[in-house]
Protein backbone atom coordinates (compact mmCIF):
# COMPACT_ATOMS: atom_id res chain seq x y z
CA UNK A 1 0.00 0.00 0.00
CA UNK A 2 1.81 3.14 0.99
CA UNK A 3 3.71 3.03 -2.25
CA UNK A 4 4.32 6.64 -2.85
CA UNK A 5 6.31 7.06 0.28
CA UNK A 6 9.93 7.09 1.06
CA UNK A 7 11.34 3.98 2.57
CA UNK A 8 10.10 3.50 6.07
CA UNK A 9 12.39 0.71 6.97
CA UNK A 10 15.68 2.08 5.95
CA UNK A 11 17.27 1.24 9.24
CA UNK A 12 16.75 -2.45 9.67
CA UNK A 13 17.89 -4.09 6.49
CA UNK A 14 17.32 -7.66 7.58
CA UNK A 15 16.11 -10.10 4.99
CA UNK A 16 12.61 -10.44 6.31
CA UNK A 17 11.87 -6.76 6.43
CA UNK A 18 13.33 -6.24 2.99
CA UNK A 19 11.05 -8.93 1.70
CA UNK A 20 8.09 -7.46 3.51
CA UNK A 21 8.89 -4.06 2.15
CA UNK A 22 9.10 -5.39 -1.37
CA UNK A 23 5.87 -7.25 -0.92
CA UNK A 24 4.15 -4.07 0.09
CA UNK A 25 5.41 -2.17 -2.92
CA UNK A 26 2.78 -1.95 -5.57
CA UNK A 27 5.33 -2.01 -8.35
CA UNK A 28 6.98 -5.18 -7.12
CA UNK A 29 3.76 -7.08 -6.85
CA UNK A 30 2.78 -6.27 -10.40
CA UNK A 31 6.29 -7.19 -11.44
CA UNK A 32 5.68 -10.63 -9.94
CA UNK A 33 2.56 -11.02 -12.01
CA UNK A 34 4.47 -9.88 -15.07
CA UNK A 35 7.22 -12.39 -14.43
CA UNK A 36 4.76 -15.18 -13.88
CA UNK A 37 3.19 -14.29 -17.18
CA UNK A 38 6.59 -14.40 -18.84
CA UNK A 39 7.30 -17.81 -17.40
CA UNK A 40 4.00 -19.17 -18.64
CA UNK A 41 4.55 -17.70 -22.08
CA UNK A 42 8.05 -19.15 -22.25
CA UNK A 43 6.65 -22.55 -21.47
CA UNK A 44 4.01 -22.16 -24.15
CA UNK A 45 6.25 -20.91 -26.90
CA UNK A 46 9.96 -21.25 -27.61
CA UNK A 47 9.91 -17.91 -29.40
CA UNK A 48 8.86 -15.91 -26.41
CA UNK A 49 11.78 -15.92 -24.05
CA UNK A 50 14.54 -14.78 -26.35
CA UNK A 51 16.70 -11.73 -25.74
CA UNK A 52 15.41 -10.36 -28.97
CA UNK A 53 11.79 -10.75 -28.10
CA UNK A 54 12.19 -9.36 -24.61
CA UNK A 55 13.79 -6.26 -26.04
CA UNK A 56 11.03 -6.18 -28.60
CA UNK A 57 8.53 -6.01 -25.75
CA UNK A 58 10.35 -3.13 -24.10
CA UNK A 59 10.47 -1.44 -27.47
CA UNK A 60 6.81 -1.97 -28.21
CA UNK A 61 5.79 -0.82 -24.76
CA UNK A 62 7.95 2.30 -24.85
CA UNK A 63 5.35 4.52 -26.48
CA UNK A 64 2.49 3.57 -24.18
CA UNK A 65 4.80 3.59 -21.18
CA UNK A 66 5.89 7.16 -21.86
CA UNK A 67 2.34 8.36 -22.31
CA UNK A 68 1.47 6.50 -19.12
CA UNK A 69 4.27 8.31 -17.31
CA UNK A 70 2.67 11.65 -18.01
CA UNK A 71 -0.78 10.28 -17.36
CA UNK A 72 0.47 9.00 -14.01
CA UNK A 73 1.09 12.54 -12.81
CA UNK A 74 -2.42 13.52 -13.81
CA UNK A 75 -4.03 10.46 -12.24
CA UNK A 76 -1.99 10.64 -9.03
CA UNK A 77 -3.26 14.20 -8.71
CA UNK A 78 -6.83 12.97 -9.03
CA UNK A 79 -7.40 14.04 -12.65
CA UNK A 80 -7.60 12.33 -16.00
CA UNK A 81 -6.31 13.30 -19.43
CA UNK A 82 -8.19 11.89 -22.40
CA UNK A 83 -6.41 14.07 -24.91
CA UNK A 84 -3.03 12.32 -24.88
CA UNK A 85 -3.76 10.25 -27.97
CA UNK A 86 -4.63 13.30 -30.02
CA UNK A 87 -1.89 15.44 -28.52
CA UNK A 88 0.41 12.61 -29.55
CA UNK A 89 -0.60 13.02 -33.21
CA UNK A 90 -0.59 16.79 -32.97
CA UNK A 91 2.94 17.03 -31.64
CA UNK A 92 4.17 14.44 -34.13
CA UNK A 93 2.82 16.52 -37.01
CA UNK A 94 4.12 19.79 -35.60
CA UNK A 95 7.55 18.19 -35.27
CA UNK A 96 7.29 16.83 -38.79
CA UNK A 97 6.46 20.21 -40.25
CA UNK A 98 9.25 21.84 -38.27
CA UNK A 99 11.59 19.25 -39.70
CA UNK A 100 10.46 19.96 -43.23
CA UNK A 101 10.84 23.70 -42.81
CA UNK A 102 14.08 23.79 -40.87
CA UNK A 103 15.69 20.53 -41.84
CA UNK A 104 17.00 20.33 -38.29
CA UNK A 105 16.26 17.38 -36.04
CA UNK A 106 16.81 19.47 -32.92
CA UNK A 107 14.32 22.08 -34.04
CA UNK A 108 11.86 19.33 -34.83
CA UNK A 109 12.23 17.75 -31.41
CA UNK A 110 11.81 21.08 -29.72
CA UNK A 111 8.76 21.83 -31.81
CA UNK A 112 7.17 18.49 -30.90
CA UNK A 113 7.82 18.90 -27.23
CA UNK A 114 6.68 22.51 -27.39
CA UNK A 115 3.45 21.40 -29.00
CA UNK A 116 2.90 18.82 -26.26
CA UNK A 117 3.61 21.33 -23.52
CA UNK A 118 1.30 23.83 -25.17
CA UNK A 119 -1.58 21.37 -25.41
CA UNK A 120 -1.04 20.42 -21.77
CA UNK A 121 -0.98 24.07 -20.85
CA UNK A 122 -4.33 24.63 -22.55
CA UNK A 123 -5.80 21.65 -20.74
CA UNK A 124 -4.54 22.98 -17.44
CA UNK A 125 -5.83 26.45 -18.18
CA UNK A 126 -9.32 25.19 -19.01
CA UNK A 127 -9.33 23.26 -15.77
CA UNK A 128 -8.07 25.95 -13.43
CA UNK A 129 -9.49 29.05 -15.09
CA UNK A 130 -12.74 27.89 -16.63
CA UNK A 131 -13.21 25.40 -13.76
CA UNK A 132 -14.14 22.59 -16.12
CA UNK A 133 -13.70 19.05 -14.85
CA UNK A 134 -10.58 17.42 -16.33
CA UNK A 135 -12.65 14.77 -18.06
CA UNK A 136 -14.57 17.33 -20.10
CA UNK A 137 -11.67 19.70 -20.70
CA UNK A 138 -9.46 16.97 -22.08
CA UNK A 139 -12.35 15.44 -24.02
CA UNK A 140 -12.61 18.79 -25.77
CA UNK A 141 -8.87 18.90 -26.34
CA UNK A 142 -9.05 15.39 -27.73
CA UNK A 143 -11.09 16.76 -30.62
CA UNK A 144 -9.15 19.98 -30.98
CA UNK A 145 -5.70 18.43 -31.11
CA UNK A 146 -6.82 15.73 -33.55
CA UNK A 147 -8.37 18.35 -35.79
CA UNK A 148 -5.25 20.50 -35.69
CA UNK A 149 -3.05 17.52 -36.51
CA UNK A 150 -5.16 16.74 -39.57
CA UNK A 151 -5.44 20.37 -40.65
CA UNK A 152 -1.74 21.07 -40.33
CA UNK A 153 -0.68 18.25 -42.63
CA UNK A 154 -3.89 18.18 -44.61
CA UNK A 155 -4.42 14.58 -43.58
CA UNK A 156 -1.28 13.40 -45.34
CA UNK A 157 1.42 11.66 -43.31
CA UNK A 158 4.85 13.25 -43.27
CA UNK A 159 7.67 11.11 -44.65
CA UNK A 160 11.36 11.35 -45.27
CA UNK A 161 12.87 11.62 -41.82
CA UNK A 162 16.66 11.93 -41.65
CA UNK A 163 18.80 9.15 -40.31
CA UNK A 164 19.55 10.88 -37.01
CA UNK A 165 15.84 11.21 -36.31
CA UNK A 166 15.25 7.55 -37.09
CA UNK A 167 18.00 6.61 -34.67
CA UNK A 168 15.82 7.79 -31.78
CA UNK A 169 13.37 5.03 -32.54
CA UNK A 170 15.41 2.41 -34.35
CA UNK A 171 18.90 2.74 -32.94
CA UNK A 172 20.41 0.17 -30.64
CA UNK A 173 22.96 0.89 -27.97
CA UNK A 174 25.82 -1.60 -28.14
CA UNK A 175 23.95 -3.13 -31.02
CA UNK A 176 21.38 -4.68 -28.76
CA UNK A 177 19.51 -2.39 -26.35
CA UNK A 178 16.95 -0.27 -28.19
CA UNK A 179 17.29 3.49 -27.75
CA UNK A 180 13.61 3.92 -26.76
CA UNK A 181 14.14 1.42 -23.96
CA UNK A 182 17.00 3.53 -22.65
CA UNK A 183 14.89 6.67 -22.91
CA UNK A 184 12.11 4.99 -20.95
CA UNK A 185 14.46 3.88 -18.21
CA UNK A 186 16.05 7.29 -17.85
CA UNK A 187 12.82 9.26 -17.91
CA UNK A 188 11.03 6.97 -15.50
CA UNK A 189 13.91 7.17 -13.08
CA UNK A 190 13.86 10.95 -13.23
CA UNK A 191 10.11 11.08 -12.83
CA UNK A 192 10.24 8.66 -9.93
CA UNK A 193 12.74 10.94 -8.29
CA UNK A 194 10.59 13.98 -8.96
CA UNK A 195 7.52 12.34 -7.50
CA UNK A 196 9.38 11.15 -4.44
CA UNK A 197 11.85 13.83 -3.69
CA UNK A 198 10.59 17.15 -4.87
CA UNK A 199 7.93 19.47 -3.59
CA UNK A 200 6.21 19.35 -6.94
CA UNK A 201 5.98 15.59 -6.69
CA UNK A 202 4.68 15.58 -3.15
CA UNK A 203 2.13 18.26 -4.04
CA UNK A 204 0.98 16.09 -6.93
CA UNK A 205 0.02 13.35 -4.49
CA UNK A 206 -1.27 15.81 -1.99
CA UNK A 207 -3.63 17.43 -4.48
CA UNK A 208 -4.86 14.01 -5.48
CA UNK A 209 -5.44 13.04 -1.90
CA UNK A 210 -7.15 16.20 -0.68
CA UNK A 211 -7.07 19.29 -2.88
CA UNK A 212 -8.82 21.50 -0.37
CA UNK A 213 -6.43 20.62 2.44
CA UNK A 214 -3.56 21.23 0.07
CA UNK A 215 -4.88 24.65 -0.80
CA UNK A 216 -5.40 25.50 2.86
CA UNK A 217 -1.80 24.50 3.52
CA UNK A 218 -0.82 27.47 1.40
CA UNK A 219 0.07 25.57 -1.75
CA UNK A 220 -0.81 27.03 -5.12
CA UNK A 221 -2.91 24.16 -6.33
CA UNK A 222 -3.60 25.81 -9.66
CA UNK A 223 0.05 26.24 -10.62
CA UNK A 224 0.83 22.68 -9.66
CA UNK A 225 -2.14 21.46 -11.71
CA UNK A 226 -0.93 23.45 -14.68
CA UNK A 227 2.50 21.88 -14.33
CA UNK A 228 1.02 18.40 -14.09
CA UNK A 229 -0.94 18.73 -17.31
CA UNK A 230 2.05 20.21 -19.07
CA UNK A 231 4.15 17.23 -18.05
CA UNK A 232 1.44 14.98 -19.39
CA UNK A 233 1.41 16.79 -22.71
CA UNK A 234 5.20 16.69 -22.85
CA UNK A 235 5.29 12.94 -22.41
CA UNK A 236 2.71 12.48 -25.14
CA UNK A 237 5.06 14.47 -27.36
CA UNK A 238 8.12 12.43 -26.40
CA UNK A 239 6.18 9.25 -27.13
CA UNK A 240 5.17 10.71 -30.47
CA UNK A 241 8.79 11.40 -31.38
CA UNK A 242 9.72 7.83 -30.61
CA UNK A 243 6.88 6.36 -32.58
CA UNK A 244 7.56 8.65 -35.54
CA UNK A 245 11.18 7.62 -35.47
CA UNK A 246 10.26 3.95 -35.30
CA UNK A 247 7.86 4.18 -38.20
CA UNK A 248 9.82 6.70 -40.19
CA UNK A 249 6.69 8.76 -40.65
CA UNK A 250 4.42 11.10 -38.74
CA UNK A 251 0.81 10.04 -39.00
CA UNK A 252 -2.05 12.44 -38.25
CA UNK A 253 -4.36 9.53 -37.42
CA UNK A 254 -1.94 7.93 -35.00
CA UNK A 255 -2.38 7.75 -31.26
CA UNK A 256 -6.07 7.03 -31.56
CA UNK A 257 -7.03 4.96 -28.53
CA UNK A 258 -3.64 5.35 -26.86
CA UNK A 259 -5.31 7.34 -24.11
CA UNK A 260 -7.19 4.25 -23.03
CA UNK A 261 -4.10 2.07 -23.15
CA UNK A 262 -2.08 4.59 -21.15
CA UNK A 263 -4.78 5.27 -18.58
CA UNK A 264 -5.37 1.54 -18.40
CA UNK A 265 -1.68 0.95 -17.73
CA UNK A 266 -1.72 3.39 -14.84
CA UNK A 267 -4.79 1.80 -13.29
CA UNK A 268 -3.54 -1.71 -13.91
CA UNK A 269 -0.43 -0.54 -12.10
CA UNK A 270 -2.70 0.00 -9.13
CA UNK A 271 -3.30 3.74 -8.97
CA UNK A 272 -6.62 4.86 -7.55
CA UNK A 273 -9.12 6.81 -9.58
CA UNK A 274 -9.49 9.11 -6.59
CA UNK A 275 -5.85 10.10 -6.77
CA UNK A 276 -3.34 10.49 -3.99
CA UNK A 277 -1.56 7.22 -4.52
CA UNK A 278 0.29 5.30 -7.15
CA UNK A 279 3.84 4.47 -8.14
CA UNK A 280 5.14 5.51 -11.50
CA UNK A 281 7.11 2.29 -11.91
CA UNK A 282 3.88 0.42 -11.39
CA UNK A 283 2.51 2.31 -14.38
CA UNK A 284 5.55 1.19 -16.36
CA UNK A 285 4.87 -2.36 -15.38
CA UNK A 286 1.23 -1.85 -16.30
CA UNK A 287 2.36 -0.82 -19.78
CA UNK A 288 4.73 -3.78 -20.00
CA UNK A 289 1.92 -6.08 -18.95
CA UNK A 290 -0.42 -4.79 -21.60
CA UNK A 291 2.29 -5.13 -24.23
CA UNK A 292 3.33 -8.56 -23.06
CA UNK A 293 -0.20 -9.83 -23.37
CA UNK A 294 -0.37 -8.55 -26.94
CA UNK A 295 3.03 -9.87 -27.84
CA UNK A 296 2.39 -13.23 -26.22
CA UNK A 297 -0.95 -13.72 -27.93
CA UNK A 298 0.61 -12.84 -31.27
CA UNK A 299 3.41 -15.27 -30.72
CA UNK A 300 1.07 -18.03 -29.61
CA UNK A 301 -0.89 -17.44 -32.78
CA UNK A 302 -4.17 -16.78 -31.03
CA UNK A 303 -6.50 -15.60 -33.73
CA UNK A 304 -7.59 -11.98 -33.84
CA UNK A 305 -11.12 -12.30 -32.51
CA UNK A 306 -10.06 -14.50 -29.62
CA UNK A 307 -7.26 -12.11 -28.77
CA UNK A 308 -9.78 -9.50 -27.70
CA UNK A 309 -11.33 -11.93 -25.26
CA UNK A 310 -8.13 -13.35 -23.83
CA UNK A 311 -6.64 -9.90 -23.51
CA UNK A 312 -9.61 -8.69 -21.50
CA UNK A 313 -9.60 -11.74 -19.27
CA UNK A 314 -5.91 -11.49 -18.49
CA UNK A 315 -6.19 -7.82 -17.54
CA UNK A 316 -9.02 -8.61 -15.16
CA UNK A 317 -7.28 -11.52 -13.54
CA UNK A 318 -3.91 -9.81 -13.24
CA UNK A 319 -5.51 -6.95 -11.35
CA UNK A 320 -7.60 -9.34 -9.28
CA UNK A 321 -4.46 -11.19 -8.27
CA UNK A 322 -2.93 -7.92 -7.19
CA UNK A 323 -6.02 -7.14 -5.11
CA UNK A 324 -5.54 -10.34 -3.17
CA UNK A 325 -2.07 -9.23 -2.18
CA UNK A 326 -3.40 -5.85 -1.10
CA UNK A 327 -5.85 -7.43 1.28
CA UNK A 328 -3.01 -8.56 3.49
Amino acid at each position, binding site marked *: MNQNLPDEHRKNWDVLSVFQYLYQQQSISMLFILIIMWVILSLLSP*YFFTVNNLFEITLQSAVIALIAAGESFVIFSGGIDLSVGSVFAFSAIVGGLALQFSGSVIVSLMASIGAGLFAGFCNGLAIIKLKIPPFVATLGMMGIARGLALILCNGVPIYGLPREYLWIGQGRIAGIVPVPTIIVIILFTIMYFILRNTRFGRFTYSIGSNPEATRLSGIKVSSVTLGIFMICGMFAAIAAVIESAR*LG*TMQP*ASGNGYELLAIGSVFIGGASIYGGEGNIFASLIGALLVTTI*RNGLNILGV*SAFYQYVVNGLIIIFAVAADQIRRKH
Partner: protein
Amino acid sequence: QDEGKSKTIVFIPKSTDVTYWLFLRKGATDKASELGYTVDYQGVATEADVAGQVNLVNNIVATKPAGILMAATDAKALQPAVENGIKAGIPIIMVDSGIEDKTIPLANITTDNFDGAYQAGLLLAEMIGGKGKVANIGITAGSQTGRERSDGFIEAMKKFPDIQVLPVQWTDAIAATAMNIATDLLNANPDLVGFYSAAAPMGVGIAQALKAKGLDQKVKLITFDPSPETLPLFEEGTINAIIAQDPYQMGYRGVEMLDKVIKGGKIEEGERDIQIPVAIITPENYDTPESQKLLQTPDKF
Protein backbone atom coordinates in the same frame (compact mmCIF):
# COMPACT_ATOMS: atom_id res chain seq x y z
CA GLN B 1 13.94 -31.98 -42.71
CA ASP B 2 10.53 -30.65 -43.54
CA GLU B 3 9.21 -32.17 -40.31
CA GLY B 4 10.19 -29.39 -37.91
CA LYS B 5 9.04 -26.67 -40.24
CA SER B 6 5.98 -24.63 -39.51
CA LYS B 7 2.90 -25.27 -41.59
CA THR B 8 1.33 -22.02 -40.53
CA ILE B 9 0.67 -19.12 -42.84
CA VAL B 10 -0.24 -15.92 -41.12
CA PHE B 11 -2.63 -13.54 -42.79
CA ILE B 12 -2.48 -9.96 -41.54
CA PRO B 13 -5.31 -7.72 -42.73
CA LYS B 14 -5.27 -3.95 -42.37
CA SER B 15 -7.80 -4.20 -39.61
CA THR B 16 -10.22 -6.64 -38.08
CA ASP B 17 -13.20 -4.30 -38.08
CA VAL B 18 -14.17 -4.64 -41.76
CA THR B 19 -15.82 -7.64 -43.38
CA TYR B 20 -13.83 -7.20 -46.59
CA TRP B 21 -10.78 -8.97 -45.13
CA LEU B 22 -12.78 -12.07 -44.41
CA PHE B 23 -13.21 -12.64 -48.16
CA LEU B 24 -9.48 -12.49 -48.48
CA ARG B 25 -8.99 -14.80 -45.57
CA LYS B 26 -11.45 -17.22 -47.09
CA GLY B 27 -9.48 -17.33 -50.32
CA ALA B 28 -6.32 -17.94 -48.35
CA THR B 29 -7.77 -20.67 -46.15
CA ASP B 30 -9.35 -22.47 -49.08
CA LYS B 31 -6.07 -22.72 -50.90
CA ALA B 32 -4.17 -23.42 -47.70
CA SER B 33 -6.29 -26.40 -46.71
CA GLU B 34 -5.82 -27.78 -50.20
CA LEU B 35 -2.09 -27.56 -49.67
CA GLY B 36 -2.02 -28.65 -46.06
CA TYR B 37 -1.37 -25.36 -44.28
CA THR B 38 -3.30 -23.61 -41.58
CA VAL B 39 -3.99 -19.89 -41.74
CA ASP B 40 -3.72 -17.69 -38.66
CA TYR B 41 -5.71 -14.49 -38.79
CA GLN B 42 -4.11 -11.69 -36.81
CA GLY B 43 -4.67 -7.98 -37.12
CA VAL B 44 -5.01 -4.64 -35.41
CA ALA B 45 -8.42 -3.26 -34.56
CA THR B 46 -8.40 -0.21 -36.82
CA GLU B 47 -6.55 0.84 -39.93
CA ALA B 48 -5.21 3.92 -38.23
CA ASP B 49 -3.14 1.79 -35.89
CA VAL B 50 -0.05 1.72 -38.08
CA ALA B 51 2.33 1.32 -35.18
CA GLY B 52 0.26 -1.59 -33.93
CA GLN B 53 0.64 -3.32 -37.26
CA VAL B 54 4.40 -2.81 -37.24
CA ASN B 55 4.56 -4.41 -33.79
CA LEU B 56 2.36 -7.22 -34.96
CA VAL B 57 4.54 -8.02 -37.98
CA ASN B 58 7.64 -8.05 -35.78
CA ASN B 59 5.97 -10.40 -33.33
CA ILE B 60 4.81 -12.73 -36.07
CA VAL B 61 8.21 -12.80 -37.72
CA ALA B 62 9.70 -13.89 -34.39
CA THR B 63 7.56 -17.03 -34.47
CA LYS B 64 9.01 -18.09 -37.83
CA PRO B 65 5.82 -19.03 -39.64
CA ALA B 66 5.94 -20.77 -43.01
CA GLY B 67 4.87 -17.55 -44.67
CA ILE B 68 3.09 -14.24 -44.25
CA LEU B 69 0.36 -12.77 -46.37
CA MET B 70 -0.33 -9.19 -45.46
CA ALA B 71 -1.95 -5.90 -46.39
CA ALA B 72 0.04 -2.84 -45.31
CA THR B 73 -1.80 -0.08 -43.48
CA ASP B 74 0.87 2.36 -44.59
CA ALA B 75 3.17 1.83 -47.54
CA LYS B 76 6.18 3.51 -46.00
CA ALA B 77 5.84 2.77 -42.32
CA LEU B 78 5.56 -0.98 -42.84
CA GLN B 79 8.54 -1.23 -45.13
CA PRO B 80 11.24 -1.80 -42.47
CA ALA B 81 9.17 -4.47 -40.74
CA VAL B 82 8.62 -6.36 -43.99
CA GLU B 83 12.26 -6.01 -44.88
CA ASN B 84 13.26 -7.49 -41.52
CA GLY B 85 10.92 -10.38 -42.06
CA ILE B 86 12.38 -11.13 -45.45
CA LYS B 87 15.89 -10.91 -44.01
CA ALA B 88 14.88 -13.35 -41.31
CA GLY B 89 13.98 -15.77 -44.08
CA ILE B 90 10.21 -15.53 -43.87
CA PRO B 91 8.46 -15.47 -47.24
CA ILE B 92 6.18 -12.45 -47.31
CA ILE B 93 3.67 -11.60 -49.98
CA MET B 94 1.75 -8.37 -50.01
CA VAL B 95 -1.95 -8.52 -50.81
CA ASP B 96 -4.40 -5.71 -51.43
CA SER B 97 -1.99 -2.95 -50.40
CA GLY B 98 1.76 -3.17 -50.73
CA ILE B 99 4.73 -1.26 -49.49
CA GLU B 100 6.67 1.50 -51.16
CA ASP B 101 9.51 -0.62 -52.48
CA LYS B 102 7.83 -3.35 -54.46
CA THR B 103 11.02 -5.36 -54.79
CA ILE B 104 11.25 -6.22 -51.10
CA PRO B 105 8.36 -8.67 -50.79
CA LEU B 106 8.38 -11.84 -52.84
CA ALA B 107 5.31 -10.71 -54.68
CA ASN B 108 2.57 -8.10 -54.67
CA ILE B 109 -0.99 -9.00 -55.48
CA THR B 110 -2.69 -5.70 -55.06
CA THR B 111 -5.52 -3.58 -56.25
CA ASP B 112 -5.39 0.08 -56.88
CA ASN B 113 -7.64 1.87 -54.43
CA PHE B 114 -7.07 5.18 -56.12
CA ASP B 115 -8.08 3.77 -59.47
CA GLY B 116 -11.14 2.06 -58.05
CA ALA B 117 -12.26 5.33 -56.55
CA TYR B 118 -11.53 7.05 -59.83
CA GLN B 119 -13.71 4.57 -61.68
CA ALA B 120 -16.44 5.08 -59.14
CA GLY B 121 -16.26 8.81 -59.73
CA LEU B 122 -16.57 8.45 -63.47
CA LEU B 123 -19.54 6.15 -63.08
CA LEU B 124 -21.33 8.37 -60.60
CA ALA B 125 -20.80 11.36 -62.88
CA GLU B 126 -22.33 9.42 -65.71
CA MET B 127 -25.28 8.36 -63.59
CA ILE B 128 -26.13 11.91 -62.59
CA GLY B 129 -25.65 13.27 -66.06
CA GLY B 130 -22.46 15.16 -65.40
CA LYS B 131 -23.89 17.82 -63.14
CA GLY B 132 -25.14 18.42 -59.62
CA LYS B 133 -23.98 18.08 -56.06
CA VAL B 134 -22.40 14.89 -54.73
CA ALA B 135 -21.20 13.81 -51.32
CA ASN B 136 -17.96 12.00 -50.57
CA ILE B 137 -18.18 9.74 -47.51
CA GLY B 138 -14.75 8.52 -46.43
CA ILE B 139 -13.35 5.90 -44.11
CA THR B 140 -10.83 7.22 -41.59
CA ALA B 141 -9.17 10.60 -41.67
CA GLY B 142 -5.46 10.21 -42.22
CA SER B 143 -5.39 6.51 -43.10
CA GLN B 144 -3.85 5.49 -46.40
CA THR B 145 -6.82 3.61 -47.86
CA GLY B 146 -9.05 6.41 -46.68
CA ARG B 147 -6.96 8.95 -48.55
CA GLU B 148 -6.59 6.95 -51.75
CA ARG B 149 -10.25 6.10 -51.99
CA SER B 150 -11.26 9.68 -51.39
CA ASP B 151 -8.60 11.30 -53.57
CA GLY B 152 -9.32 9.03 -56.53
CA PHE B 153 -12.94 10.01 -56.43
CA ILE B 154 -12.17 13.71 -56.22
CA GLU B 155 -9.68 13.37 -59.08
CA ALA B 156 -12.33 11.87 -61.34
CA MET B 157 -14.78 14.59 -60.42
CA LYS B 158 -12.34 17.27 -61.50
CA LYS B 159 -13.20 16.32 -65.06
CA PHE B 160 -16.75 17.51 -64.56
CA PRO B 161 -16.94 21.25 -63.97
CA ASP B 162 -20.68 21.09 -63.36
CA ILE B 163 -20.37 18.69 -60.51
CA GLN B 164 -19.88 20.09 -57.04
CA VAL B 165 -18.28 17.71 -54.54
CA LEU B 166 -19.06 18.43 -50.90
CA PRO B 167 -16.10 18.26 -48.51
CA VAL B 168 -15.24 14.70 -47.57
CA GLN B 169 -16.74 13.44 -44.28
CA TRP B 170 -15.00 10.72 -42.30
CA THR B 171 -16.88 7.97 -40.53
CA ASP B 172 -14.30 5.53 -39.17
CA ALA B 173 -16.22 2.97 -41.22
CA ILE B 174 -19.14 3.06 -38.79
CA ALA B 175 -22.47 2.57 -40.50
CA ALA B 176 -24.46 4.62 -38.02
CA THR B 177 -22.13 7.59 -38.34
CA ALA B 178 -22.49 7.45 -42.10
CA MET B 179 -26.24 7.33 -41.77
CA ASN B 180 -26.31 10.42 -39.56
CA ILE B 181 -23.97 12.36 -41.78
CA ALA B 182 -25.86 11.40 -44.93
CA THR B 183 -29.13 12.54 -43.40
CA ASP B 184 -27.63 15.85 -42.32
CA LEU B 185 -26.15 16.44 -45.75
CA LEU B 186 -29.48 15.66 -47.40
CA ASN B 187 -31.22 18.12 -45.09
CA ALA B 188 -28.72 20.84 -45.78
CA ASN B 189 -28.46 20.15 -49.50
CA PRO B 190 -31.83 19.28 -50.91
CA ASP B 191 -30.23 19.34 -54.34
CA LEU B 192 -27.85 16.50 -53.56
CA VAL B 193 -27.94 13.93 -56.37
CA GLY B 194 -25.26 11.41 -55.59
CA PHE B 195 -23.29 9.70 -52.83
CA TYR B 196 -19.97 8.01 -53.02
CA SER B 197 -19.15 5.66 -50.17
CA ALA B 198 -15.57 4.51 -49.74
CA ALA B 199 -16.43 1.26 -47.94
CA ALA B 200 -19.30 -1.12 -47.35
CA PRO B 201 -20.46 -0.08 -43.85
CA MET B 202 -20.98 3.48 -45.04
CA GLY B 203 -22.84 2.21 -48.07
CA VAL B 204 -25.32 0.56 -45.73
CA GLY B 205 -25.67 3.68 -43.60
CA ILE B 206 -26.19 5.99 -46.55
CA ALA B 207 -28.69 3.61 -48.11
CA GLN B 208 -30.74 3.64 -44.93
CA ALA B 209 -30.64 7.42 -44.80
CA LEU B 210 -31.88 7.59 -48.38
CA LYS B 211 -34.64 5.11 -47.70
CA ALA B 212 -35.76 6.95 -44.60
CA LYS B 213 -36.14 10.11 -46.65
CA GLY B 214 -37.77 8.31 -49.57
CA LEU B 215 -34.92 9.34 -51.85
CA ASP B 216 -33.60 5.86 -52.49
CA GLN B 217 -34.69 5.76 -56.09
CA LYS B 218 -33.70 9.36 -56.82
CA VAL B 219 -30.29 9.90 -55.33
CA LYS B 220 -27.53 7.75 -56.78
CA LEU B 221 -25.27 5.78 -54.48
CA ILE B 222 -22.07 3.99 -55.36
CA THR B 223 -20.18 2.10 -52.71
CA PHE B 224 -16.80 0.46 -52.56
CA ASP B 225 -16.59 -3.17 -51.42
CA PRO B 226 -19.36 -5.71 -51.40
CA SER B 227 -20.53 -7.05 -48.09
CA PRO B 228 -23.44 -9.43 -47.60
CA GLU B 229 -25.74 -6.80 -46.14
CA THR B 230 -25.24 -4.48 -49.12
CA LEU B 231 -26.65 -6.98 -51.60
CA PRO B 232 -30.33 -6.63 -50.74
CA LEU B 233 -29.88 -2.88 -50.91
CA PHE B 234 -28.37 -3.26 -54.33
CA GLU B 235 -31.12 -5.53 -55.51
CA GLU B 236 -33.81 -3.09 -54.47
CA GLY B 237 -31.99 -0.29 -56.26
CA THR B 238 -30.89 1.83 -53.33
CA ILE B 239 -27.28 1.11 -54.06
CA ASN B 240 -26.70 1.68 -57.75
CA ALA B 241 -23.24 0.25 -58.17
CA ILE B 242 -20.64 -1.63 -56.16
CA ILE B 243 -16.93 -1.33 -56.76
CA ALA B 244 -15.64 -4.83 -56.15
CA GLN B 245 -12.08 -5.86 -55.79
CA ASP B 246 -11.40 -9.55 -55.85
CA PRO B 247 -10.25 -10.26 -52.32
CA TYR B 248 -10.94 -13.98 -52.55
CA GLN B 249 -8.66 -14.23 -55.53
CA MET B 250 -5.92 -12.27 -53.79
CA GLY B 251 -5.98 -14.60 -50.83
CA TYR B 252 -6.14 -17.68 -52.97
CA ARG B 253 -3.30 -16.72 -55.25
CA GLY B 254 -1.25 -15.37 -52.39
CA VAL B 255 -1.18 -18.73 -50.67
CA GLU B 256 -0.53 -20.47 -53.95
CA MET B 257 2.58 -18.38 -54.50
CA LEU B 258 3.75 -18.72 -50.91
CA ASP B 259 3.52 -22.48 -51.25
CA LYS B 260 5.63 -22.35 -54.32
CA VAL B 261 8.37 -20.43 -52.48
CA ILE B 262 8.15 -22.59 -49.39
CA LYS B 263 8.62 -25.65 -51.49
CA GLY B 264 11.80 -24.09 -52.88
CA GLY B 265 10.42 -22.76 -56.12
CA LYS B 266 10.79 -19.31 -57.56
CA ILE B 267 8.27 -16.72 -58.57
CA GLU B 268 8.59 -15.73 -62.18
CA GLU B 269 9.42 -12.10 -62.86
CA GLY B 270 6.14 -11.65 -64.67
CA GLU B 271 4.17 -12.90 -61.68
CA ARG B 272 5.77 -10.65 -59.11
CA ASP B 273 3.46 -7.70 -59.45
CA ILE B 274 -0.12 -8.58 -60.09
CA GLN B 275 -2.65 -5.79 -60.19
CA ILE B 276 -6.11 -7.17 -59.81
CA PRO B 277 -8.41 -4.69 -61.48
CA VAL B 278 -11.59 -3.59 -59.80
CA ALA B 279 -14.86 -4.78 -61.14
CA ILE B 280 -17.78 -2.43 -61.35
CA ILE B 281 -21.00 -4.18 -60.52
CA THR B 282 -24.10 -2.57 -61.93
CA PRO B 283 -27.61 -3.93 -62.43
CA GLU B 284 -26.58 -4.78 -65.98
CA ASN B 285 -23.81 -7.19 -65.06
CA TYR B 286 -25.13 -8.19 -61.62
CA ASP B 287 -26.41 -11.56 -62.70
CA THR B 288 -23.31 -12.66 -64.57
CA PRO B 289 -21.39 -15.51 -62.93
CA GLU B 290 -18.27 -13.33 -62.73
CA SER B 291 -20.06 -10.72 -60.69
CA GLN B 292 -21.79 -13.26 -58.51
CA LYS B 293 -18.45 -14.81 -57.73
CA LEU B 294 -17.21 -11.47 -56.43
CA LEU B 295 -20.35 -10.64 -54.52
CA GLN B 296 -21.47 -13.79 -52.82
CA THR B 297 -20.40 -14.39 -49.30
CA PRO B 298 -18.71 -17.74 -49.05
CA ASP B 299 -20.94 -20.15 -47.15
CA LYS B 300 -18.48 -20.48 -44.40
CA PHE B 301 -15.65 -18.10 -43.66
